[in-house]
């Protein structure tokens, strides 16, 4: 395991087993190839493998109530455009790009509903606190925002986030460390 100092954070570079990334991308490539040939089962497996990630990326940008519909949209767009994906092994990154585009489209279009601010959304203190935490994460820079949602909401571990998103393990680790630090500051500041 190599280590380097990035700011005040000691980053352990080899925290992701290399075979995890290789295994993920090569399996994705096989599934993409099969799905392109019309194998719906293969596309179903791609959906199972990446739906948590897509859900997390969308949740980092759009209201919770809209996320499920947009996840569905993202995979339907992916299915329709699968033939245009040049590098099947890059499926996960391509899927994230579609998800971010859908989130951008969502904010461009007139919306059917607005998400209630945490203070008027619920009388349940836990629900209130959860919404406030999610809002605080959404107010962070995009890199921290998505990584934190994938880790703290979707329950993905750092190595898995790195393998699925294509980020280097060091970047994911930095994003998690700094993101949580900023989140703590925000929640600490906003807590009465």
């Amino acid at each position: 395991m190599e280590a380097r100092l990035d700011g005040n954070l000691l980053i352990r570079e080899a925290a992701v087993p290399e075979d995890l990334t290789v295994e993920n991308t090569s399996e994705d490539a096989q599934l993409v190839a099969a799905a392109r040939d019309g194998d719906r089962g293969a596309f179903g497996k791609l959906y199972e493998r990446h739906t948590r990630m897509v859900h997390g990326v969308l949740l980092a940008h759009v209201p919770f109530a809209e996320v499920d519909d947009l996840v569905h949209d993202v995979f339907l767009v992916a299915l329709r455009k699968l033939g245009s994906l040049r590098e099947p092994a890059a499926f996960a990154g391509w899927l994230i790009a579609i998800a971010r585009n859908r989130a951008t489209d969502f904010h461009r279009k007139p919306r059917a509903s607005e998400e209630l601010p945490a203070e008027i959304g619920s009388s349940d203190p836990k629900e209130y606190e959860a919404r406030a935490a999610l809002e605080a994460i959404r107010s962070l820079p995009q890199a921290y925002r998505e990584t934190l949602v994938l880790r703290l909401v979707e329950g993905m571990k750092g190595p898995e986030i790195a393998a699925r998103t294509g980020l280097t393990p060091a970047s994911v680790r930095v994003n998690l460390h700094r993101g949580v630090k900023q989140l703590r500051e925000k929640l600490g500041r906003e807590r009465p």
Partner: protein
Amino acid sequence: MNDDYLWDGSGSPDPEVERIENLLARFRGSQPPLEFPEVVRERPLAPAQKIAWVLSMAAAILLVACAAWYARGWLRHDSWIVSEVVGSPQLNGHVLRQNGHWRPGGQLETDATSRAELQLPGMGQIEIEPNSQVALLEASAEKQQFRLERGEIRAVVIAPPYVFLIHTPTAYAMDMGCAYTLHVDDDGTSLLRVTVGWVDLQHGWRQSLVPEGAAAESRPEIGPGAPYYEDASERFRQGLEIVNFDESDAKARSAALTTVLSEARKRDAFTLLNLFKRVDAEDRGRIYDRLASLVPPPPGVTREDAVNRDSAKLGPWWDLLGIGHAKKGFRGPPRVEE
């Protein structure tokens, strides 16, 4: 901070991170089954067939899309479309955008320089005037319910009767196929002005049927008063205000009723009909006498029926006023030469 736990869940959990994780777990994706559109593999077509097929499919899709778009507007009643915005009205604290949708649960506020116009195909159109606060309580094919806390709404309703309702702090206005303006002051007092058709204004046991051209006020703790035409004499309106809302002094009310009866024109007969249920038996006899002199009662309807407030017998009197019966359909305001 325990970076190992944050990184891969190993090591001892950081209590704060673990607590946030537990809180946020409710937002985790549930991975619902993905519904794929069916793909049918077909025999390759010749180029000419392909072009014809593409053109015919495009035409068919366009037709279906137009029909679906048209039907969508008429079949979906779950949100109001923001058709025009002036200034910066706010929906749940966010600036309202034109072409957006307003769904139940939201509260819309306008300041002194903003207003909004909303439409719902098959239901109607509402204009929310400056300094108003409005909530959308329900939006469905069966009921469209708003609450006007303060300010003013102008409504043009094409929905069937009793589908469109506006609640205010002192009454609720049920549309019977019409256009009207409803204004609510900061103290909750409301004023309804009907420009087309009829509105049924209710609160508790109090009910006022308000026809085209008439107005009705509603006050806190009391509810709606009898409606009236705003071109009635000043003395008529002042007397009516006491009869409608001053329940503290019986003598003053009786004197006010005397003024109302003496000032009533033939055109004001509908106000007198609305008063039967707001006064005591003795005064009902006096109302009958004046009303009968303005518009003779239906055959068989006696003073005693009025004193006993026999609504089944008094009901047909509405038909003789020349303004139609609210529940049978509007036939226009009375055209009476004074």
